[in-house]
């Protein structure tokens, strides 16, 4: 079971956080453009399924998979979107994404708080307020300095 990367978007489409662990192929465009493309794709998928759906939906879009990876999606009622790419062996990541969101909200207090995710075969967190702790061999976390994950 592998986790490739994780994106967190706010309701306006700006990327709040991006972490990468095991990514073998880059998209071939700059990171800003990739975030915009990812957000645009999710927005289009949501509007596509709301038109296509034969019955009224409750949770909406959950996940999609291709021949090599699976993308899991979780959106909070406030518009925060968490997106995780994993390999095909992962059944359902919604609970994990919900846990990530609740843990970050719970521990965040300062404006420059960062989220550091370690991963091997499982996800565990060290959310540090005000200090960014680097583990260069394992974790490459990127946070836009002006933004903070909102309460």
């Amino acid at each position, binding site marked *: 079971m592998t986790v*490739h*990367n994780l994106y967190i978007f706010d309701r306006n489409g700006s990327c709040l956080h991006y972490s*990468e662990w*095991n*990514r*073998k*192929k880059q*998209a*071939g465009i700059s990171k800003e453009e*990739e975030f915009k*493309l*990812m957000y645009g*794709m999710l927005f*289009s*998928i949501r509007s*596509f*399924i*709301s*038109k*296509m*759906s*034969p*019955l*009224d*939906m*409750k*949770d*909406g*879009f*959950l*996940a*999609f*998979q*291709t*021949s*090599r*990876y699976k*993308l899991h999606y979780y959106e909070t009622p406030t518009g925060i979107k968490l997106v995780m*790419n994993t*390999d095909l062996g992962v059944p359902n990541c919604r609970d994990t994404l919900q846990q990530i969101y609740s843990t970050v909200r719970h521990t965040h207090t300062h404006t420059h708080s960062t989220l550091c995710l370690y991963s091997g075969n499982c996800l565990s967190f060290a959310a540090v307020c005000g200090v960014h702790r680097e583990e260069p061999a394992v974790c490459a976390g990127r946070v836009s300095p002006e933004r903070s994950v909102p309460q």
Partner: protein
Amino acid sequence: MAIFSVYVVNKAGGLIYQYDNYVPRAEVEKTFSFPLDLVLKIYDEKLVVSFGQRDGIRVGHAVLSINGVDVNGKYTAEGKEILEYLKDPANYPVSIRFGRPRLTSNEKLMLASMFHSLFAIGSQLSPEVGSSGIEMLETDVFKLHCFQTLTGLFFPLILFDQNLKSALEIAEKAGAFGPGS
């Protein structure tokens, strides 16, 4: 496992075949008196509920028929504007049927092309080498499977997974509100 609809899209993204095998959609018919407590607005040439969700009528549902006569977009069958008709207290009490709007052929063409692009973007944003496009897309109500042939045609299919509890609950509730029961 039931198949809702089949679409066949060509290499350029254009829809070439489409077939619907629908399970009946949730529709609600109610009688209203003046003034109407729902807020309706015109969206995509249809009259859609924008506020006032209650009793099975949800935001996004469209007006399907008035007093038993099917409407024609935002006009009644006689050609009058529905919004004007509903502003006049002399026309009440009125019985209106709401439900999920059906897709027109134009909308199906647009959605098929949109899916074609999403399929390609799914492959571009892949963190792994050699990924295909979207093969399976899952929501809480339906699953969309897509098969791409070697010649570039692709077949998105919408399936209704009968093991999904939430979908069954929705269908049961829809049955309870239907006009016959």
